[in-house]
């Protein structure tokens, strides 16, 4: 298949502002879009810059805007995009170069909700017990690969880059609803603030963008309800 790739380029050393670049590549329908980017980089233009590592959708390196939507380049197949594709860096992050965006602020936000197990009592000699139902309660959030696709798709984030954004809340959810954790109240207090959970306007771009199929908005809504009602970590 012959594919026309329109790519948004920007090199801070050379360019005052971003511009469009075009490449034509010959690809197999079951190749990944990442393969097409590699083909460009390796055979046409070595300066094309993007992140990638695992090449199969588990490391979260290559979230970018593909035909207007945030996707992982390694999870989009050529046969699903057809003959023409537009690739841009994600919105909501400063662009470092071409498709590479600065994720530092993203990780700082993630850190702000204490994304680690908080326990106050002493550790048992073996494992802490947890029933399969309790484990299932927070399963969705554990799938997150911190790719940032959700946060970069959220109009609330575009408007206000200080907002913690959906990925942070998903990861807070993962701990708030873990029956072993004892820091839930702390996290809810953080998320109840001005740049906390309330800036989510249930826009659902996040859930659509998540390459891991996490029902992001649903998890955010559970956190909102936990803030309003309090409640137990048990199954809803």
């Amino acid at each position, binding site marked *: 298949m012959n594919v026309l790739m329109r790519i948004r380029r920007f*090199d*801070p*050393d*050379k360019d005052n502002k971003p511009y469009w670049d075009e490449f034509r590549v010959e690809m197999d329908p*079951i190749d*990944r879009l990442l393969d097409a980017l590699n083909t460009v*980089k*390796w*055979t046409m*233009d*070595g*300066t094309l*810059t*993007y*992140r*990638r*590592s*695992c*090449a*199969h*959708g*588990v*490391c*979260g*390196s290559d979230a970018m805007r593909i035909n207007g939507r945030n996707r992982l380049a390694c*999870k989009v*197949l050529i046969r699903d995009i057809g003959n023409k594709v537009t690739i841009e860096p994600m919105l909501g992050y400063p662009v*470092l*170069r071409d498709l*590479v965006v600065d*994720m530092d602020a993203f*990780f700082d936000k993630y*850190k702000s909700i*204490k*994304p*680690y*197990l908080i*326990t106050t009592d002493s*550790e048992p*000699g*073996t*494992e*802490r*017990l*947890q*029933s*399969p139902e*309790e*484990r299932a309660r*927070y*399963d969705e959030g*554990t*799938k*997150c*690969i*911190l790719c940032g696709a959700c946060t970069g798709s959220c109009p609330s984030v575009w408007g206000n880059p200080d907002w913690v954004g959906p990925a942070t809340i998903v990861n807070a959810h993962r*701990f708030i609803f*873990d029956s*072993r*954790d004892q820091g839930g109240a702390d996290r809810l207090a953080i998320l109840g603030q001005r740049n906390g959970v309330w800036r989510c306007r249930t826009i659902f771009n996040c859930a659509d963008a998540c390459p891991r199929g996490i029902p992001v908005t649903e998890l955010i809504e559970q956190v909102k309800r936990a803030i309003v009602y309090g409640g137990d970590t048990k199954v809803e």
Partner: protein
Amino acid sequence: MYYKFDVVIVGAGGAGLMAAMQLEGASVAVLTKVYPTRSHTGAAQGGVAAALGNQEEDHWKWHMYDTVKGGDYLVDQPAAEVLTREAIDAIYELEHRGLPFNRTADGRIDQRRFGGHTRNFGEGPVRRSCYAADRTGHMLLQTMYQSSIKNQVRFFNEYLVLDLLLNNGQACGVVAMEIRTGEIHTFHAKAVMFATGGYGRAWRITSNAFACMGDGMAIAYRRGIPLEDMEMYQFHPTGIYKVGVLLSEAARGEGGKLLNNEGEYFMERYMPTLKDLAPRDIVSRCILQEVHAGRGIDGKDYVYLDLRHLGAKVIEEKLPDITDFARNYLGVEPITEPVPIQPTAHYAMGGIPTDIDARVVIDPQWTPLPGFYAAGEVACVSVHGANRLGTNSLVDLIVFGRRAGKHMAKFIKESSHAPLPPEPESYSRELVSTMFASTGGESAARIRSALQNEMDEKVFVERDEKGLQEALDTLDRLQDTYTRVQLQDKGKKFNTELVEAIELGFLLECSEATIHGALARQESRGAHYRTDYPHRDDANWLKHTLAYKGAKAHDVRLDFKDVQMVDDPVFVPKERKY
């Protein structure tokens, strides 16, 4: 820039982070060329082995037996004992740090079957692999990263380490390039640890990430440290056809079976006891035998992995990611169709030689290089010998990562910073500036591609003298071409073309050591199968190879190191049958 820390850890995968966790109170820097959560550990699917006995009776000694036998007796047995004993505590530590394992009905860590893990010294499969759906590695990596946030570990993300600094036979730091700015920095430390993972990108069909370029191994190798057992490279039997993306052994642990074009579950014929759960080297070879006998699907070089009889519930709930991969990359629906698979390059059993405290040892006499540590896939404590069992790598990371951390904690208390060598950055600066200056017109991508083709063809599941010789000649030529690699991208900021070119240099050197080991080892053992020497030869080859770098690909010097045994009759080498 110049930075000074007590400890510098290179690599933020499972091994690096586990070590960092043990160093509370010390000043620690973790350098990684990708964001920590993008490390390759996150790709591990199946599980992590430990004889907890939550599901059925189990003992660390059975686990040790399986490890030793699975490694075709090339395993250093005292290390295997440490691995399997300490696995249990390490798993509890992970659980306490928050790792969301799947649970049994009574709330304990759930365990499932995995290839080569047996009860009572080989009687039948046992449930030993602790898991979190089919994303155990992801959960492990996330948990370790979360713990490091809690412990306020200092990360240097997207820093490519280029060189190891040694002075008077002691490690004293590393030099790294900050990818974002292109600047070179020196990190001065009392102890340096490498946890940089494997080099699976030397092959085209591979389960490994783009980042798995053998950096750590090659950097050490360039500094005169040998690489151990590099010929022992594992090919996982079930990679997605043509793509190489892994379908975890968990699929077979849950009951999946391999199918040939005659509709036969052929593993039952080869390995009557463990069937599809035989160790990976064996299963990969059986697949190749089926293909050679014309029983590959459509006469091609692949067979099927059949999950259909497991039912939609098990497939969706216990193997969600795998199912997703099959759907996404092959357009195959595993609930109703068998999945095309072929062996894929997967794991380096060999690497930088270490002792059980993860100290790097540089000769057959086990002489440590003070201040230098290694753990994880980059290292070879030799708990995997000639073939690693599924789920034994993650245990390796956490057990020896932890030991490295604990030993470094002690080491830095007892020692002070060794002075840096004169002009510590000169090697790295030159490496980068020659890359920029070169006008040779060669492309790194083309060289890498040629290397991968050669490795796929001649240094695969089966090897022979002739092929290996040819591969070595090719490598010699490629290394020569490599000196003429020219960059299109002359920018400093985020120059990934430069990064890829530097990494290719690492990859070429790891491949060189691999081919030399494979040529020398005139026997078949574990993952190393020589068609011209099809039998194991304990009389001559119950020993490790150590490859020392020479001037060119042909000039590698090999040395040998005895396999360490424990004094117990069950661990005496026997023929490997399942």
